[in-house]
């Protein structure tokens, strides 16, 4: 049986609105995926919050590359975390974490 190599996509995003904690944000992301695409979507996407800088309010989330539009949609659909209104905007997408970090580092003054 042919097996497709697992490829990842890393999305850098900016949190707008009130201050949120990393754990709450992680729950909100998984909750949004589950609400929109169910458990089926959750295991396909396998969303993982890699990093979250509370000072710059920038985070990095990882997902499986085939389901990138689902990941974007799930981030877009988040409107609140723990009752606080927020919005998430994807800044950059990359195939490697190193390239993504480099892109964000150069673009951070515009964000």
């Amino acid at each position, binding site marked *: 049986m042919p097996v497709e190599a697992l490829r990842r996509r890393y999305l850098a995003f900016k949190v707008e609105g009130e201050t949120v904690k990393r754990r709450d944000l992680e729950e909100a992301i998984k909750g949004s995926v589950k609400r929109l695409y169910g458990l089926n979507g959750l295991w396909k996407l396998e969303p993982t919050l890699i990093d979250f800088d509370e000072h710059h309010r920038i985070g990095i989330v990882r997902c499986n590359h085939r389901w990138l539009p689902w990941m974007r949609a799930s981030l*877009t*659909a988040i409107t609140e975390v723990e009752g606080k209104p927020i*919005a998430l905007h994807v800044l950059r997408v990359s195939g490697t974490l190193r390239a993504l970090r480099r892109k964000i580092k150069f673009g951070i003054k515009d964000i």
Partner: protein
Amino acid sequence: MRRFIDLHLRPRSRGELEAMLGKALWLGYRGVAVAGDQPPRNLEAPEGLDVISRIDLKPNTAGALKASLRRVRRLYEVVAVECRSKAVARQAARDHRVDVVYFPPDSGLWFDDAEARLAAQSGCAYEINLTELLSLMRQSDARGLRRVAEGIWNAYRRGVPVILSSGASEPLEMREPRGLASLLTLLDIELEDAVEMISDNPWSIVERNRRKLSGEYAAPGVRVIGQGGGVDAR
């Protein structure tokens, strides 16, 4: 490179409008349409952002719609109609002065096949607002989502352009264009089609109307290319 446009911003104050314009540019939009009772005047739009005037008509009857259209058509670049009754929806879809129709979820109406047929002939587009879509998703309103999806299918079947807008009334309700497009994959829309709904489809409406309002337009298919000088009649 895609030129994204958010065809529906409805700020509640001048301060919010200015914040939303700055944010639209940051999110990657090249144009925004601002809905209001007055076309935005003396507005300092950020460089690189095209600000388009729009009016949302909310008539109760077909007659009221026709009267409003006579009054506002030449004042705004985009004329949209909020459909809260079937009579208004049919008249709006049929009238060539209407650019966009949209259906608030609480109206219980959707863009049906008859309206799609009329809209295809008049050149009217069907609009979906993100704020309304998100509220349906938050409430897991299956019937409401079904209505939106059916509206899109009817539009596709009849060749009516579909437009995806934010419908934002404050900066926090705005989203980046590709995220907005990705949300429609939930309704089984191809990503590339969804991207067109937020770029090519709305721009074509704006460009068409700007040509009409420029004074060059005489009638469908007839354009003024010059004046005076006369024609040699020999």
